[in-house]
């Protein structure tokens, strides 16, 4: 019996008849809109439709596809921009006949005309197992590896295709049971792709942002949340991370956010260079854009689409970073759909399963040994947009439970144009101990120690500020005044970083260390002289302090910073000489 629409309520449609399974992808109505079955009750199927249902009538047909909601994984994804259910927006534009997205558009996610030069890694007679890499093509800045789909084990290759330039629709090998190993595979988005085993995260994802790398670092395979009210710079920070993080692949999910922000990435990234490979940043980036005015249920799906693509590249042995901007919009989509389904709400109208959905998403991050024995990672960085900037709301509090880094953006800092507006008192990183060894071995053995000292100065400054706010700085003894001044040096000279500056937008780790060392050694020396009752104005000589504050911008090389460092040493030598006299 053919299924028919019996009820329509926005993106939620009920169909009668048909024989569907949960999470099956279906085609709804005369326009064949894409939908997913989310509930079954006797003969009725509740369907979430990924497009606007205006104009749909009761009695229109619903067709099953027999497949779960899935993504297509193969060469041609890099540099693309997709909507929440992996329709390439470039082709959607063509098929819509213009800039406005029409309904019911069906298009294959990969370019089917492009010919790829394939490097075959196996021959007839070889045996294959799931996850094994059988061929590869060059795509963008990476080598795209084709892997045996899950469930195919211990099968012999009987034939190899007799061409070397293939399109994604071609097969590569034929196995003994007739299975074809193609150029692409599909995977249901709501199911995590398997790995051989999870490994501990012990290598940092280097972002070139001092407040992150130096103070609140994240590991490859780690999870982080960026909560912040509007105007605090969430998107700006996500863009900075997408530009500079040392990942092989970036998946940027614009989930319910502004259209112009995606356009900005599309215009800017092809012009920017990856500092490691020298290739345009777009050649390692995949965009998923389900902007705020696009259908809300596809917004719900976009997060899964993005993370499934990320896992696919991880399985090739790459380090992938996902930026999800914003997970709050995804949670709101859940809430809206839950409301339409007339479920009983928990906090603030959100469904009771909000926490478990957030957990499932972040748990797909990780550092792992893949089925083919390589090492790869998925790092997840999710923006959170708490209503009214209130961090006690459900999405922020639940997210906090499942992430290890919390980079809290602060409205006060943003108002005074302190960017990135990450509040050093309320933020934290759970990776500091795990990464200590790496920083010690790869940057400088004193890095972790300097970092801890700087943090304690910031903390002490926090306490002193509350006194200053009431009585002014003059009431403090010199030793505490010094702490306040050094804290200011850290805040302005190190924590503040100008994303628009060619020099400062990306700060290499070594430079970060040297800057920190300069400030902290300055502090140690200054402390000695304060104890010896030397006047503050002599210790904090104007031009030296100004040099330190400006070194992020003016010191272009490591040598330049060492020069500042030497100036500081000379300065203290002359103070010492004067003091002796």
């Amino acid at each position: 019996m053919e299924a028919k629409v019996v009820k329509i309520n926005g993106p939620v449609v009920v169909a009668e008849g048909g024989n569907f399974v949960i999470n099956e992808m279906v085609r709804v109505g005369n326009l064949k809109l894409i939908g997913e079955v989310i509930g079954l009750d006797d003969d009725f199927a509740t369907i979430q439709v990924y497009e606007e249902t205006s104009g749909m009538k009761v009695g229109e047909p619903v067709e099953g596809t027999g497949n779960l909601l899935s993504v297509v994984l193969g060469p041609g994804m890099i540099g693309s921009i997709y909507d929440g259910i992996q329709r390439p927006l470039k082709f959607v534009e063509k098929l819509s006949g213009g800039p406005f997205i029409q309904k019911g558009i069906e298009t294959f996610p990969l370019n089917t005309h492009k010919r790829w030069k394939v490097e075959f890694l196996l021959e007839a007679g070889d045996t294959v197992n799931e996850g094994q890499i059988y061929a590869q093509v060059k795509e963008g800045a990476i080598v795209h590896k084709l892997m045996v789909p899950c469930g195919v084990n211990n099968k012999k290759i009987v034939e190899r295709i007799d061409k070397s330039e293939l399109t994604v629709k071609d097969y590569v090998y034929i196995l003994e049971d007739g299975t074809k190993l193609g150029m692409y595979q599909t995977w249901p988005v709501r199911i995590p792709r398997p790995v051989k085993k999870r490994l501990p995260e012990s290598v940092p994802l280097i972002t070139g942002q001092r407040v992150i790398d130096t103070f609140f670092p994240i590991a490859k395979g780690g999870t982080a949340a960026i909560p912040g009210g509007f105007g605090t710079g969430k998107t700006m920070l996500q863009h900075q991370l997408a530009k500079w993080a040392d990942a092989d692949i970036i998946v940027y999910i614009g989930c319910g956010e502004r259209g112009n922000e995606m356009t900005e990435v599309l215009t800017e990234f092809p012009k920017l260079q990856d500092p490691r490979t020298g290739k345009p940043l777009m050649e390692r980036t995949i965009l998923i854009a389900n902007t705020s005015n696009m259908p809300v249920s596809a917004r719900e799906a976009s997060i899964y689409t993005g993370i499934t693509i990320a896992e696919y590249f991880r399985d090739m042995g790459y380090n992938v970073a996902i930026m999800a901007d914003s997970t709050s919009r995804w949670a709101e989509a859940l809430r809206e759909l839950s409301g339409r389904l007339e479920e009983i709400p928990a906090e603030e109208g959100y469904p009771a399963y909000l926490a478990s959905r957030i957990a499932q998403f972040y748990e797909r991050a990780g550092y792992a040994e893949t089925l083919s024995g390589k090492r790869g990672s998925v790092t997840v960085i999710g923006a959170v947009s708490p209503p009214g900037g209130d961090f006690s709301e459900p999405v922020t509090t639940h997210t906090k439970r499942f992430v290890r880094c919390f980079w809290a953006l602060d409205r006060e800092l943003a108002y005074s144009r302190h960017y990135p507006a990450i509040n050093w008192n309320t933020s934290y990183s759970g990776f500091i101990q795990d990464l200590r060894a790496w920083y010690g071995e790869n940057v400088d053995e004193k890095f972790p120690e300097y970092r801890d000292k700087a943090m304690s100065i910031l903390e002490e400054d926090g306490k002193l500020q509350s006194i200053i706010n009431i009585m002014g700085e003059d009431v403090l003894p010199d030793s505490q005044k010094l702490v306040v001044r050094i804290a200011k040096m850290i805040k302005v000279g190190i924590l503040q970083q100008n994303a628009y500056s060619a020099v400062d937008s990306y700060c290499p780790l070594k430079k970060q260390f040297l800057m920190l060392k300069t400030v902290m050694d300055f502090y140690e020396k200054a402390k000695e002289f304060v104890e010896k009752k030397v006047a503050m104005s002599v210790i904090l000589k104007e031009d030296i302090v100004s040099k330190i504050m400006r070194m992020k911008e003016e010191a272009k090389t490591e040598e330049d910073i060492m020069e500042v460092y030497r100036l500081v040493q000379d300065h203290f030598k002359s103070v010492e000489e004067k003091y002796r006299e």
Partner: protein
Amino acid sequence: MAVKEYTGVKKAFGPLIVLEGVKGAAYDELVEIEANGKKRLGKVITIDKDLVIIQIFEGTAQLSLPNTKVRFTGKPLEVKLSPDMLGRVFDGLGRPRDGLGEVVSSEKRDINGLPINPYSRVYPRNFIQTGISTIDALFTLIRGQKLPIFSGNGLPHNELAVQIARQSTIKEGEFVVVFAAIGLKNSDVRFILSSFEGTGASKNIISFLNLASDPVVERIATPRVALTVAEYFAFDLGYHVLVIMSDITNYCEALRELSNYRGEIPSRKGYPGYMYSDLATIYERAGIIEGKEGSLTQLPILTMPNDDITHPIPDLTGYITEGQIVLSRDLHMRGIYPPINVLSSLSRLMKDGIGEGYTREDHPNVASQLFAAYSRVQEVRSLASIIGEEELTDVDKAYLRFGESFEREFIKQDFSEDRSIEQTLDLAWKMLSYLPEEELTRVSKEQIDKYLKKVK
């Protein structure tokens, strides 16, 4: 498509009616309701087998269950489009209100529009000179941007919107203003429309008026009708269009009222959980499109209930729009017009639309320096209020003086005063000259030599 007509309604409450035994109704389609010889418009909001719920834009007042006729039109609510709409006044659903007769055109479009493909957008970066120093220097308006004014009751947001619209000069192209009044008071509408009279802008204005006394549910449609017309002028006819929508707060109230009647589960302060998505379908209609000549810039106005910026209406708006201009009651009380709160306002698109080749080479640094200095002023002021001004250091005293002049000379300007960007930036340097030169860390030495000397 055959038009179907039914007589008799099962249930009527608030703005909703329920019909039974309906065949072939389409979701979201437009219906015409006839009762007591008067016509009303409505749309289908839920279909459950043969049961249909309809939302009536004019409300259900004086409706009787058996005598009401309902016609299903088989199409969504549409608006007629024609270049002759320039200078005309319409009601909140796009029907003429000026007695000049119907718009004659075969071009009709669904008021809900369709989402702009992010791939087809052009990133906006062309500066609009509003002639208002604070906006031009610190919150630069960019063609294709959506920049709301967050105001409060009794603050001069209407004046500011009018001044922006009147003075906005763009370097090329003709400029059309689309004005959507959403539940506005009669006096506000009169002020806004009369302010354009006698200026060149009056023939380039298209107005859609839903007044405070007009049906509440109609407010849901008003911004969409206005934006459909605006999109037509921008992307079909190639005009640069500025859309002023006031007051978004009234729109959200209408949305809440309707949601309540529909028995939906509310989220914050009783507003529906989908308010973010709903507002986005309005605000995201701003922009520039590849291959099209025109642009659509939005200047929505909202009054923050109780001046609370964390209230759901300004909050959700701020998450969608590209910045916000926040008005300050404090500055207003001190007689400063326009009372723009410098620290909480923001323009997200200005970074790519200012500086060399756009405004002036020193603009980004000057703006950054003004922000930094003015934010320091706030600290000094709160310190001075505790320890007294005499106890301040000389540098802090200089900041106080800067803050005072900045507010009195830079922010403050006359309702009809139109400053060029050069005048504005020179004035900014004059303000900075009140500070010791060492404090100017965000501008370069060369810029200090070039501009500071000039104003001193």
